[in-house]
């Protein structure tokens, strides 16, 4: 029996005013959590928007749940099975947290009031916002609003969860809570997690896709990407200007990521961040990745 992938992108290209945001991207996703890394402008958000059916590709084919959504009915059928947290998300004025998620639930066709309210309470509890659900959205902190956005994406336990930087502005304690929520979601759903936080990818994902300049630079297991940095990370007593990256750590020693070991350096265990820096080189350093 052939297993139909949740997402299958073939040769997807999207240009904005002549600049390629995505360039011939091929990607297949099935159940589990896939991390999407890349510098700013790499095309991560464009990829998520196309997969979420809010943007059409200039070229290539997008197949979701085995169908190519074209007409309004097919689009609605696909959208019933996906949850999407966009990178930037405003909130309508005057809504409480509960009211906002309730409104989104109506848009997701939860027409039975009792069932809808129960589902809204469930997702608010999942993201630990049940205590502030009655507060106006305008009175919530940035991190709370981000979790509210995640709550609406989780409505109905979607088969495909597309998350664009879900942990931005979220404090470490809440981030752990969100990781628990996402790891549970990844057990049965397909989760695509776009982020600058390499430690979130390392903690949650079994697969990572690195985009750069609209093209896929790496697609494989997180462990495989980390392995590319083996033997290229050291702890030294002094910074190494010739290295790809070098910085002073809290112990007073310098972590050096590069091609050659500095004098007197000792090997260090590579992390996903090291591998990412090595993969993208100067671009990763100039556009930044959150440590």
């Amino acid at each position, binding site marked *: 029996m052939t297993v139909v992938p949740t997402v299958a992108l073939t040769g997807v290209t999207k240009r904005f005013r002549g600049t390629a945001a995505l360039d011939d991207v091929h990607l297949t996703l099935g159940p589990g959590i896939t991390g999407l890394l890349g510098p700013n402008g790499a095309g991560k958000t464009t990829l998520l*928007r196309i997969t*979420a*059916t*809010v943007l059409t590709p200039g070229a290539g084919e997008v197949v979701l749940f085995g169908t190519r959504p074209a*007409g*309004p009915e097919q*689009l*609605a*059928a696909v*959208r*019933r099975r*996906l949850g*999407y*947290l*966009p990178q*930037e*998300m*405003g*909130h*309508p*004025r*005057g809504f409480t947290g509960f009211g906002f998620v*309730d*409104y*989104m639930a*109506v*848009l*997701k*066709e*939860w*027409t*039975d009031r009792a*069932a809808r309210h*129960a*589902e809204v*309470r*469930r997702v608010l*509890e*999942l993201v630990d916002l049940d205590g502030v659900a009655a507060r106006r959205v305008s009175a919530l902190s940035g991190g709370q609003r981000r979790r509210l*956005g995640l709550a*609406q*994406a989780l409505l*109905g*336990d979607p088969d495909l969860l597309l998350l664009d930087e879900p942990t931005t502005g979220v404090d470490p304690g809440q981030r752990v809570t969100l990781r628990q929520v996402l790891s*549970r979601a990844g057990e049965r759903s397909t989760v695509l997690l776009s982020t600058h936080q390499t430690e979130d990818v390392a903690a949650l994902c079994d697969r990572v896709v690195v985009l750069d300049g609209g093209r896929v630079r790496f697609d494989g297991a997180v462990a495989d990407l980390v392995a590319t940095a083996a033997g290229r990370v050291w702890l030294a007593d002094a910074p190494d200007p010739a290295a790809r990256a070098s910085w002073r750590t809290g112990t007073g020693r310098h972590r050096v990521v590069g091609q050659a070991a500095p004098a007197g350096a000792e090997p260090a265990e590579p992390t996903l961040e090291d591998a990412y820096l090595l993969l993208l080189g100067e671009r990763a350093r100039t556009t930044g990745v959150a440590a």
Partner: protein
Amino acid sequence: MSAVLARPAPSTRGATLRTLAAAEARRYARSPVFLAGVLLLLWATATSLGDLDDAGGDLAVVPAACLGLAGVLVGHSLTRSTSRPGDAVRAAPADGALRTAALALACLVPGAVALAWAVWVALALAAADLPVAIGWGRQAGMLATGVVAAVGGPLVGVLVGRWTRFPGAGLVAAVVLTGWTLACTAGLMMTATRWGTLVHLNAPFATWTSADGPDAPPWLAGGSPWWYVAYQVALCGLAATAAMVHEATGARRTRLWRVLAVLAVVAVGCLALACAADPTRVFL
């Protein structure tokens, strides 16, 4: 963690539209601008009813201004605010045309208030036992113009909210509607011909009484109030359909364009019939 609930079976568009329209209607009813408009309507009407005459129909300007004109701002604000979550809304199964239709249905909230107002004024006129020189049918038609304007203003707000991104577009639309209406009062200064009636009645809202001077007796303009109401209803349909066209795609968009064309023909026909009636002015 609580248990995952069963995902709802796909609802019909009708069920989703009803639920969404009810949610939008609640938002409309809670809008501070709308509530202020209702208070102003009550105050202005109560004040005017103390000085009743047989031209009570021109009180229709009160709901047209308090609910219709203010409704342009409310409709625009509601439409823009529902667009604020951006892609999260666009990725939901309820598409843009459905969301716009729900907003259009929410515009019946001020319409319901205006209808209650019309009943109130009609009862007050009847209780005052004034000689109604223009006849009750015409009087009711004149009151109805205020009710339809109370729905039409918010619909224009929804239309402008869908097609523009400029935050002050609602205010600009309200000013344009006011200007259009005021410009058409020039028809009342023209001779009582069908052309003069056309200039007078092509506005989205029209007053029906005027006078040739401060001490001159008032008169009622020519034309048919009920065909004018039909013209207003057609304009409302045009605004709602044009708003829905914005996010409709494929065959649905084509259908909506056809509906727009039909409504435009109906609007022109109703206006022509409103102007075809006797243009002679009736002195009150």
